């Protein structure tokens, strides 16, 4: 695992409030270079809030965020994008009336603005990752299927050549086969060197691709650990790995008791 060097992202004691309601309390996490880190947890635990606060879509109340080793006192979305952070939001936020190719091109807007005029090459790379998008390149984004929309959202984020990719529930609302494909791509992205912070309700799939995981409950980090260890943790199995995991959980709980 590529863990040397400074971490890409360090979040310490991050608090975010909506009015008087605190949605995120003292959350701390680290994403190392080239790592895939996942945050799992139930609906309403504050996972999306966490990502939006890191990206600057939501103001934080307290806490520090260091991106690429640099402290970020005032987080602005545009600054974070320029610095190499890309967020794929839960809603995908595609430009529905524009073609797939135009959506991808706009993904490179910040690079273009900063003088990097290489979006045709980057688009080829994205098409190699998602060949389906190449077939649909002239089609309007609003007419794509759910899976294709997710591919486009991820592809568009990759057009910015990010150092850190934030993915918010990429599996949401997708058929199991498409989920599998999306997670295969996430695992493959490791080779490109981009670090990934993956927020998921689908804990099983997330823990399979991730190196490290956090469990977020009621706005607080309840558990953390290397992904394989989390996947074996009885509490995680019981709460997040669902029915299929319950039997395994029972057996893994009975094992230490027997020994």
């Amino acid at each position, binding site marked *: 695992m590529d863990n040397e060097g400074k971490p890409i992202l360090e979040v310490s004691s991050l608090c975010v409030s909506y009015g008087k309601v605190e949605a995120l309390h003292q959350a701390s996490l680290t994403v190392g270079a080239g790592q895939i880190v996942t945050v799992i947890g139930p609906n309403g635990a504050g996972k999306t809030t966490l990502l939006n606060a890191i*990206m600057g*879509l939501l103001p934080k109340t307290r806490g520090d965020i260091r991106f690429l080793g640099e402290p970020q006192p*005032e987080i602005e*979305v*545009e600054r974070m*994008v*320029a610095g190499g952070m*890309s*967020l794929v*939001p839960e*809603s*995908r*936020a*595609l*430009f*529905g*009336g*524009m073609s797939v190719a*135009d959506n991808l*091109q*706009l*993904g490179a*807007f*910040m690079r*273009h*603005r900063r003088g990097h005029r290489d979006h045709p090459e980057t688009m080829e790379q994205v098409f190699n990752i998602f060949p389906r998008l190449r077939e649909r390149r002239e089609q309007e984004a609003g007419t794509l299927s759910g899976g294709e929309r997710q591919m486009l959202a991820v592809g*568009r*984020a990759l057009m*910015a050549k990010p150092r850190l990719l934030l993915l918010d529930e990429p599996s949401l609302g997708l058929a199991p086969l498409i989920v599998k494909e999306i997670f295969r791509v996430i695992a493959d992205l490791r080779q490109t060197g981009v670090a990934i912070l993956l927020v998921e309700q689908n804990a099983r799939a997330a823990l399979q691709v991730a190196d490290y995981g956090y469990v977020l409950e009621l706005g607080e980090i309840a558990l953390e650990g290397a992904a394989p260890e989390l996947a074996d943790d009885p509490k995680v199995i019981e709460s997040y790995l669902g029915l299929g995991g319950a039997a395994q959980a029972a057996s893994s709980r009975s094992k230490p008791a027997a020994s």
Partner: protein
Amino acid sequence: MDLQIALLLAQDGITNGAIYALLALALVLVFAVTRVIFIPQGEFVAFGALTLASLQVGKTPGTLWLLLGAGAAVALVDLLLVVKRGSYRSIPRIIGWNLVYPALAAAAVYLLKPAEMAMPLQIILTLALVVPLGPMVYRLAFQPLAEAPVLVLLIVSVAVHLALVGLGLLFFGAEGSRTPAFSEASLRLGDIAINGQTLWVVGASIALIVVLYVFFERSFYGKALRATAMNRTGARLMGISTVMAGKLSFLLAALIGVLSGILIAPITTIYYDTGFLVGLKGFVGAIVGGLASYPVAAAGAVLVGLLESYSSFWASAFKEVIVFTLIIPVLVWRSLTTHHVEEDE
């Protein structure tokens, strides 16, 4: 009415319709990107025409003072923000655009003797004086309210309109002005003499619409504006800042407004408050297009022009009434055919 009169009225209607179409496009653009219903659009028409007229008679146009004043105000607001945030990199840009540029414009007005210039140069100077007011108005009046509801933005828009009309009276007085035609040439088509200025207006409008189309379809920044209109959050996540998109759309709207004013100045006498009515007719066109569709808005605006011209022949006292009544059937039809969409912000 014989055919000849009908054709003359059509010519008149199409000329005005072309201008309304330009304004309708600008209104749709500004609304789509910023959700502002840009009532002061008409003031840019009047300021454009009257600034050109002032330059031609050798007077200093009052819009120069407005440019200097608005520039200073923007610089003040932006510099205070810079000090508060502690990021000083943008200081040269702020001073350059808001203090140095207006000063250069003032120097041009005083040193270059605009009254003796060729007309194209006078037009360029007019554009240079009035168009930058667009982004400045956005910066001062609308940027602080970027997240406000449409109604609040509309109220501010009306306030800006009233302020600019007042300034227009102060700058240019109550008398109207007309500028000489771009060319005296006219074209004969059978029995009909087509006025040279008509050709200029229609030709320039079509050219501008083509340029805008290419800008929105092909250029990176044009696509960025469309993206902001479609999905604000998505656009921000691409690094397209809401502020940049807002300033750019106001810049384009001001440019379209000023050009429209320059184009109609030789046809109609423009007073300080003429712009409002012209802008409102563009607005009727934009409403026909639901403030969303560019081609329908342009077609609606041409319809407004034709309706206005024919109603001025048959019932000239009711000209404006007829034009603005067009809004009622359009709104009824739209409310029956389109389902209500909740505002997403």
